[in-house]
């Protein structure tokens, strides 16, 4: 553990995780495509001194009941100048997209946020998404993961393809660049070849934070090799601890320092001042939903009880922190920031002020060395 604080991020998606969230009186379903809505959510999260906001996305219809969503990288970029400290982790998918474009767009997010970018790479698994592109049929889960691994690998190389001091502006020799500090990545994979170098100079964090969802052995392997942050969906602290230990072992086997992995459990939260209020609100939502509530760990109750739960996992060494998924936005986000975080802070588990201005800084991660640098 590198800090005494647990790492805390919050997932922003539509009107919240619950399929009927958008019908809650607390939701603002008419504003989901209005940038002011997103700015308000991100600023709330920043007021809570959270490590990051995570922006879900896909190239299909969201799994919630809302058939619309803005491009997450673009939303994150729109949020960057409107916030000052908080990390921004959007999804960019890996199945129908180009690694070269994703590398430059996330690098650019890091430039415009001055070092607060992350990236949550996700495969596109559905036939519907495949038809939106019309290039290839849906692949097997194994192939999708393999392709995701190649994708993440090559994006990391492209970020390193400019050394930090590649721009020399040497008037005497009339050279803007030192080409020795630029590198062809010459990646040849099963799914694509990419020559490089990137067209975008190395981002401020060197490599933006990579966050990968662990949902099976394949993705655990990929995450332990390539990710800085692991989003795990564990039913309880024991399962989370086992995943974390496995991830550390795989990372070590791949020559990585396990201390540079941040394993965060996902929990959907439905909060209220009293337990019975929370359960009643949750019941109303469930009754209004015409589809099953998605799987995954959830918590319905008071901020105090949630704080106990999170502290229990964290102090027991099961995780490095959490991604909290508000059941209803902005309501549950407000409860997190106004009620939960102060309790955690009182217990010494949440920061009292930002002490860094990059996402790597919040996560206690060092700047990565450039794999191509010779010195």
């Amino acid at each position, binding site marked *: 553990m590198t800090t005494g604080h647990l790492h805390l991020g919050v997932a922003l998606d539509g009107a919240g995780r619950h399929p009927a969230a958008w019908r809650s009186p607390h939701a603002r379903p008419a504003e989901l495509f209005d940038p002011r809505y997103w700015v308000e959510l991100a600023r709330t999260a920043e007021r809570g001194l959270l490590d990051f906001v995570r922006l879900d996305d896909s190239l299909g219809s969201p799994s919630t009941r809302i058939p619309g969503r803005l491009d997450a990288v673009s939303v994150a970029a729109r949020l960057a100048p409107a916030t000052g400290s908080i990390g921004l982790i959007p999804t960019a998918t890996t199945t129908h997209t180009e690694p070269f*474009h994703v590398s430059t767009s996330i690098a650019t997010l890091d430039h415009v946020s001055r070092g607060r970018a992350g990236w949550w790479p996700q495969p596109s698994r559905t036939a519907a998404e495949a038809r939106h592109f019309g290039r290839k049929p849906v692949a097997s889960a194994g192939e999708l993961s393999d392709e995701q691994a190649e994708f993440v690998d090559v994006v990391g190389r492209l970020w390193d393809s400019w050394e930090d001091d590649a721009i020399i502006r040497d008037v005497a020799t009339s050279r803007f660049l030192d080409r020795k500090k630029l590198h062809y990545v010459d990646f040849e994979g099963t799914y694509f070849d990419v020559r490089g170098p990137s067209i*975008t100079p190395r981002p401020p964090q060197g490599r933006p934070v990579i966050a990968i969802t662990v949902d099976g052995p394949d993705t655990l392997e990929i995450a332990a090799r390539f990710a800085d942050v692991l989003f795990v969906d564990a039913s309880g602290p024991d399962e989370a601890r086992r995943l974390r230990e496995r991830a550390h072992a795989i990372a070590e086997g791949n020559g990585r320092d396990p201390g540079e992995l941040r394993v965060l459990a996902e929990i959907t939260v439905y909060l209220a001042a009293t337990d019975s209020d929370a359960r009643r609100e949750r019941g109303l939502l469930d009754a209004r939903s015409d589809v099953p509530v998605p799987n995954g760990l959830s918590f319905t109750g008071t901020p105090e009880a949630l704080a106990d739960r999170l502290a229990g996992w964290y102090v027991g060494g099961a995780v490095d922190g959490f991604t909290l998924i508000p059941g209803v936005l902005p309501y549950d986000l407000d409860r997190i920031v106004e009620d939960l975080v102060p309790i955690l802070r009182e217990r010494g588990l949440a920061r009292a002020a930002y002490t860094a201005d990059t996402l790597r800084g919040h996560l206690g991660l060092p700047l990565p060395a450039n794999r191509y640098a010779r010195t």
Partner: protein
Amino acid sequence: MPQPNSPRPNNSQPNSPQPNSPHTKSPYRPRSPGHPTRRIHLAAHFPGVNSTTVWSDPRSGSQIDFDSFEHLARTAERGRFDFFFLAEGQRLREHHGRIFELDVAGRPDALTVLAALAAITDRIGLAATATATYNEPYELARKIASLDHLSAGRAAWNVVTSPDAWTGENFRRGGFLPREERYERAIEFVEAARTLWDSWAPDAHVADAEGGVFAAPGAGRFDYHGRHFAIDGRFTVPRGPQGRPVLIQAGDSTDGREFGAAHADVIFSRHGEYEAGRAFYADMKGRAARHGRSPDELKILPAVTAVIGATAEQAQEKAAWIRRQQVSPQNAIQFLEQVWGRDLSDLDPDGPLPDFDPITDGTSIARGRVRTGGDPLELARSWRELAAAKGGLSLREVVIEVAARQTFIGTAEHVADRMEVHVRDGASDGFILVPHLTPTGLDEFVDQVVPILQERGVFRSEYEGTTLREHLHLPAPRPAGTHRTDVAV
């Protein structure tokens, strides 16, 4: 590095008398009766990755820090410009098979920067260049539609094509497209994008919580089948504030012009000079009419530069200084190498042009440039003539002469006069200003020329609308498939 160009007739050489020269008396008195006032449109081009952009100047700032984008976008918005423009190139330029070191290089992803700029600007349009070759409609249309929402109706897309396999080496799909097919794919790409943008009716985002209806039934459903794309499903971004984002096009071949005339809202042209501008303008408006469009639906905006001085002489001196900065001795040599097709690093930049002829085996030693052209032997001949006619110019001086792309040079009054004349006489509908300095290169123009244009009533003093479509006086987009023959031409 500047780009070699076809030889130009002597009277269009930068320093010879021409309509733009401050030494020529303007044939036009700005407010002569009988000419209806024509409004000028202005756009700001972020300095590019070529020798037009001077980085050796002490005032030159970062080409990648967000501060630079912020400065130029805010300056352009202060000047009430129609839009802020970002170019793209998906591979670093090379010379002799190695990365080209002499010019500014390294750019951000355009759409991502523009989404960030949407946060710190209110009215100015935000235009991104994106190739139709190494993108797919669903993903790109979604990003552009997202920008339209995130900017409250200010998004534009400059559609370009990239026919070379060399750029394709950075992409999954590689250099798969024969040159002849690039516009065929671009046309289908635009049709597909418009199908997606039209897939949500304006009122389809219902958000009726009581009734349990978030979106109208079928919102987002689409189906596009062409030779290059066969896609169907559901688009996830509701119709944006502009209905359809503004479409810009920047190709110059016959195919490119036809494509632009039929589909674009704005043409980004390279014909900033008066005569060439008039010819191009007439050609494009004619093509638009043949496609059943009103000439006003297509705005012609050439790339131009402006050098402003307190007097005509000062402006000329400043322009000459900029030209020298743009062509360093090393840059001059590498420029010539593109035409001579061989290593010329032994030559003295201050000495004469080579006395041997270019190699003409058709291979290019430079890659990643928008345009190289002209027969090398013919270029060499015309440059030797130029050197002799001007009293024995050095190699570098010749390159400075032929590579310069300076459009308007003079006092602020003069530059305003010339802009007004160009637009009055049908050489353009306005201009895309390309500054030579990052990020302060438009400060003078905005402080000195814009107020004159505003005073004369040929340029807005305040934004009248909120969307880019409104700034450009473009009609609201028609739904897909509507026939255009009802339009008066």
